[in-house]
């Protein structure tokens, strides 16, 4: 069995990518998603991809899946009815939510407070108390626990979460309650805070545990259904799910800790970008995934995505490791508007969504969107390759005319160009969050742009960031499925320490790290990966004693010589990061807050596809010429069919490259070179256009 299959389920489409591991040959299938039961669409797409390849489902070795089941449950508010057990005195931990009100001064006047994920009427307190060093202040009153759980049972909860004060230092009471709950609430899945997130800060730990419980029934059911469907259809390979941190885990593990899947979808895109960029020889790059309503960005250093400890989905922020993906509400459907009072031109965050969509879709939309501006300027040809959708340019023009009427801008083109400039700036803001604001100079990075609208805005974002080349992957619309199929198995074990350096030693720390490594290996070993092929990496979250935020630092296990070499190396690594981020150091003692061991399986050895060689002349792919708006006037631009481009072809801007699911815009003064791996590399004219290999 030499086939792996990547599966990415989006809101509208399910993308399937079947790969022959030996030849690198790929087969793509796109089917409509089936929200009522996503596994139906998945299986249908898989069958279709297999037909194309001329193989049976039984020849698939592994199914690698990025899923938005957890994400959608949060965004649509359709998760389980969650019961919550807290320590007496803390019933309102989610109601108070750290007292935080977003927005500036007076922001409270207009803020609609979201309802807690676990309702107060489904929250109970139990009599027990653990102190800050793990000592038992008040023993657990088991009779009280049963009484309280019976109340929740009557309320008809569908999932249970348990989060007690100081449980990160002593989990005994939480574990005992879970045991009792298994008797009192049979069949109900239980999320325990000391397992989900053994970290200090009761609100953050509780909300993360509740979020886990909230999505768990749906995720577990989905994974189970999909596994049985796959088996029923004759697929013998295992199912793996992509986590928010970009690692794959078995379906079963995913079902136990679904809060770690909230960014599974975006993580697939970043993983795909890693695969694509590696083929082109670039190891440091920014990624930007532009969709209809939002844009996701991330930073990748030496082919390793930067990882953060927080995950944000809509209004919800939880503590779960994820690729540090930042999202802004700017995309093709973002609506441009002019508040009458200030006469400012604003784009988003409101979006036209799928219905009615941009005016150019002719489905009744009348508000000007980013897509309409792209149509007005000629960047999106009205007849797309494949001819499935045609765009109504006149409708787009009338929509953008509304901006002309409300501002001092005098032409529809000027207004459209303004909309594009502003939305690009919003996206730049997101790119700066992961680069400049983390102390990285974007000019030292390439930029990988994907998602339906990414290639349209990519060249402009290259100009704004100075990140070159801009890399447009093959099939930018299905990059997530590519990522799913090309990443590796991963599992991490975490422990919160909160220990000053003077309170620990090299030997003690090494012992703890080794224990963590042992537990991190378990799921991989169960997944038939021999220990010799597992790679272990260590990291820790450090701060100066007394600081409120930690900085993640890689731990070099080889530096632990029993004489303080390990701690010294950690100290140096932390100081280097602190200096880079904040440009100063303190004399204060260092403190280790969290340590973790990550076990990774080998990267699948997938051969990259290779395009046939051509010359620099792209004329075989030439379609026709169109007029586009650039630099304040109309200019002629050639349109090319991406499917006919060959390696080494060079296209000079202004030009448009079309394919089934995306359109690439090459601006004047730039050239786009086709790499043999299928990616297109855009650079300013005058830079080195010859590519290696």
């Amino acid at each position, binding site marked *: 069995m030499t086939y792996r299959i990547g599966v990415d389920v989006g809101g509208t489409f399910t993308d399937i990518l079947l790969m022959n591991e030996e030849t690198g040959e790929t087969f793509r299938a796109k089917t409509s998603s089936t929200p009522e039961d996503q596994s139906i669409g998945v299986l249908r797409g898989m069958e279709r991809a297999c037909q194309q390849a001329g193989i049976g489902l039984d020849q698939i070795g592994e199914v690698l899946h990025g899923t938005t089941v957890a994400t959608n449950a949060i965004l649509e508010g359709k998760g389980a009815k969650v019961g919550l057990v807290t320590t007496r*005195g*803390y*019933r*309102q931990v989610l*109601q*108070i*939510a*750290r*007292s*935080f*009100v977003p*927005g*500036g*001064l*007076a*922001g*409270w*006047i*207009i*803020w*609609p*407070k979201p309802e807690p994920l676990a309702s*107060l*009427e489904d929250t109970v307190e139990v009599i027990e108390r653990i*102190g*800050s060093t793990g000592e038992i*202040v008040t023993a657990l009153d088991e009779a009280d626990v049963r009484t309280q759980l019976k109340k929740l049972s009557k309320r008809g909860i569908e999932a249970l979460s348990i989060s007690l*004060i*100081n449980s990160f230092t002593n989990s005994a009471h939480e574990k005992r309650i879970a045991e009792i709950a298994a008797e009192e609430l049979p069949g109900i899945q239980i999320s325990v805070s000391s397992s989900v997130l053994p970290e*200090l*800060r*009761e609100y953050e730990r509780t909300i993360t545990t509740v979020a886990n419980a909230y999505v768990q029934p749906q995720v577990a059911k989905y994974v189970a259904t999909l596994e049985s469907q796959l088996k029923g259809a004759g697929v013998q390979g295992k199912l793996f799910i992509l986590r928010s941190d970009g690692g794959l885990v078995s379906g079963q593990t995913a079902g136990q800790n679904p809060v770690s899947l909230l960014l599974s979808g975006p993580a697939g895109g970043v993983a795909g970008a890693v695969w694509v960029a590696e083929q082109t020889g670039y190891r440091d790059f920014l990624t930007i995934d532009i969709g209809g309503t939002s844009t996701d960005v991330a930073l990748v250093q030496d082919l390793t995505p930067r990882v953060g400890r927080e995950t944000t989905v809509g209004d919800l922020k939880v503590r779960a490791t994820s690729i540090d993906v930042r999202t802004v509400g700017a995309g093709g459907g973002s609506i441009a508007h002019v*508040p009458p*009072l*200030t*006469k*400012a*031109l*604003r784009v988003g965050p409101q979006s036209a969504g799928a219905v009615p969509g941009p005016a150019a879709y002719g489905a009744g939309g009348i508000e000007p969107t980013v897509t309409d501006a792209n149509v007005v300027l000629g960047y999106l040809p009205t007849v797309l390759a494949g001819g499935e959708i045609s765009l109504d340019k006149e409708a787009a023009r009338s929509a953008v005319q509304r901006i002309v009427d409300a501002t*001092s*801008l005098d032409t529809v083109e000027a207004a459209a*160009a*303004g909309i594009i*400039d*502003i939305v690009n*700036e919003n996206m730049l*803001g997101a790119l*700066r969050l992961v680069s400049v*604001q983390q102390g990285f100079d974007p000019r030292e990075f390439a930029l990988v742009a994907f998602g339906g609208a990414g290639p349209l805005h990519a060249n402009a974002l290259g100009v704004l960031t100075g990140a070159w080349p801009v890399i447009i992957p093959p099939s930018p619309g299905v990059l997530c499925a590519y990522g799913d199929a090309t990443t590796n198995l991963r599992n991490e074990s975490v422990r919160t320490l*909160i220990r000053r350096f003077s309170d620990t030693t090299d030997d003690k720390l090494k012992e703890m790290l080794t224990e963590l490594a042992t537990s991190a290996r378990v799921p991989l070993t169960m997944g038939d990966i021999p220990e010799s092929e597992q790679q272990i990496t260590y990291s820790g979250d450090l701060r*100066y004693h*007394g*600081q*409120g935020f930690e900085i993640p630092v890689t731990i070099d296990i080889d530096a632990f010589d029993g004489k303080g070499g390990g701690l010294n190396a950690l100290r140096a690594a932390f100081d280097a990061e602190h200096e880079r*981020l*904040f*440009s*100063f150091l*303190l004399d*204060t003692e260092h403190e280790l807050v969290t340590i973790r061991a990550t076990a990774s399986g080998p990267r699948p050895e997938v051969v990259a596809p290779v395009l046939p060689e051509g010359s620099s002349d792209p004329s075989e792919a030439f379609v026709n010429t169109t007029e586009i708006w650039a630099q304040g006037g109309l200019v002629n631009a050639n349109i090319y069919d991406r499917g006919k481009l060959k390696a080494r072809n060079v296209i000079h801007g202004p030009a448009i490259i079309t394919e089934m699911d995306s359109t690439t815009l090459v601006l004047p003064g730039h050239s786009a070179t086709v790499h043999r791996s299928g990616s297109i590399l855009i650079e300013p004219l005058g830079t080195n256009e010859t590519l290696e290999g």
Partner: protein
Amino acid sequence: MAKLIETATTPLRSVEVDVVTLDLVENALRNARYEMDEVLFRTALSPGIREQHDEFPLIANREGKMVVGQFGLSVPDFLENFEGTIEEGDVLLTSDPYSCGGSISHANDWLVVMPIYFEGRIISWAAMFGHMSDVGGKTPASMPTDAKTIFEEGIVIPPFRLYKKGELDHDALKIILNQVRKPDWNRADLNGLVAACRTAGRRVQEMCARFGVDAFDSALTALLDRNYQAMKVLLAMVFKDGETISFTDYIDDDGRGHGPYELKLSLTRTGEKVLLDFTGSSPQAEGPINYYINENLVRMFFGIYMITVADPQILWNDGFYPLVDVEIPKDSFWQPKYPAALNARNHGVGRIFDLFGGLLGQNNPDLLNAAGFSSSPHFMYSGNYTTGPRKGEWFQLYSVSFGGIPGRPVGDGPDGHSLWPSFVNIPCEYLESYYPMRIERLETVSDTGGAGLHRGGNGVETEYFFLEPGTIAIHDDRWLTYPWGVNGGEPGARGRKWIQRVDGTKEILPSKLIDVPVYPGDVLHYITWGGGGWGDGLLRDPELVALEIRRGLVTSEGALRYGVVCDENGVLDEAATKKLREKMAGERVYPLPTFNMGPPLATILERAFEETGLHAPVKPVPLL
């Protein structure tokens, strides 16, 4: 007056900036301002800044007008009062309200001001202040509630150059840090403030390089003008020409037994300008509650209310200031005479939001919220560990608490939330890990939010169980006068504090105190006040009231205020509810008053002891 040293000689040109570039600059400035917050939060050591976010950044144009920020401050006032030269690489520091025209209002706030140079000229200013947990003086946390002069409030730093051409003045810093109880905190927090301003400096310089210095400067002018034009339209829309409107609210006491202090604010529009007049407010207090307010800060508070509702995405700034005149009587609560004590001005800072809310909302229903959690009550606890591995070590806590957000036009006021932007509470597990205390309870108190169609948010009860001997201090208010309701809504409940001593005695505490000893086993009950209600409570959906009983946010007894009859499990009795509502409506006089401040002040004073266990304060008199 500061002398600014610039090497560039060619004057800046005013250039046309298109609407798109303007929005790009606006956006980039907004990002830079949030980046300032981020840098400080992540590097600060004091819980007040790192966990609670008690800090305020701004970026100004080259004349010192704030273009982005919050709580501003007045760079021009600062420069006016600074004797000396300012050149590239300088970073200035002060904590003296009297030396910067009230740009900061008590000595705990350390203000860093930095000129941003580009190609030899000042093109912008970055400034940021943060609340230091301790600045020395006679009591831990440096806020003695009984102080009569600023000399009792710790070190007061006059404006000086902390960095001269990029070089830190080590000696000066050493002298300053020698005065405070937690020098490590002050040093780290100050480092963070400087790092944040420098970050803003880099962002501004990048913008100058990208857009050109002329375009950048002109864009800032245009952004200021955008506010000016918007405000002009708003003023004409909201206020009648020639009409004067007024509103009065109170601060209950001054920490020395005087009160309540009457705070009066009036507004008159004449042509395109308005006048904000504080005449009629109480005289300067003997105690430390005086709020030395800067005129520009008044303009800014006013602007926030006006603009937040009109275009929430706008970057409000100083541009509209010429449209607003401000009159502040001398030697008053708002402009006390040096060297009046200032440390407890946080009640005034908070109450001014209620003042503006009540004043502006009279003619503008979109802006009329009930009275909210208009303060930032402080709780302090300090001492030396007597046992364990930290024996002998000094511990010191400064924390800000929260209460009920008022009922609002958009809906209920959130329970136990902060009116202050980006403020959050300190996690209990953090407190227990770093301080000898346990938090036995942190929850909102049912029925403390005022009844209304939109309920006021509940206040919060925190139970602090002390594990080591030490002293506590509290700064709070609204123990006497009520957080008022509006449009038929009822007032919220007042705040209360008491200690349950380990020997079983209950000790009622005043809302402002210092140096109260506590012992292991003592429990402090610390209850903040609720928000006022908005709209007629009889119109609130009875099912919602019932649901809130099940949630423990309202009791069955409290439900009666809504004319809703439920049992204690929140099961609604529809017939009884209908009957009760009819009866209550019949006993009322319609239309319901716009403001409901509870009983008349005289009655409140008369019943003070009976209702609160605390004696009514003595009427304030002008100081000689």
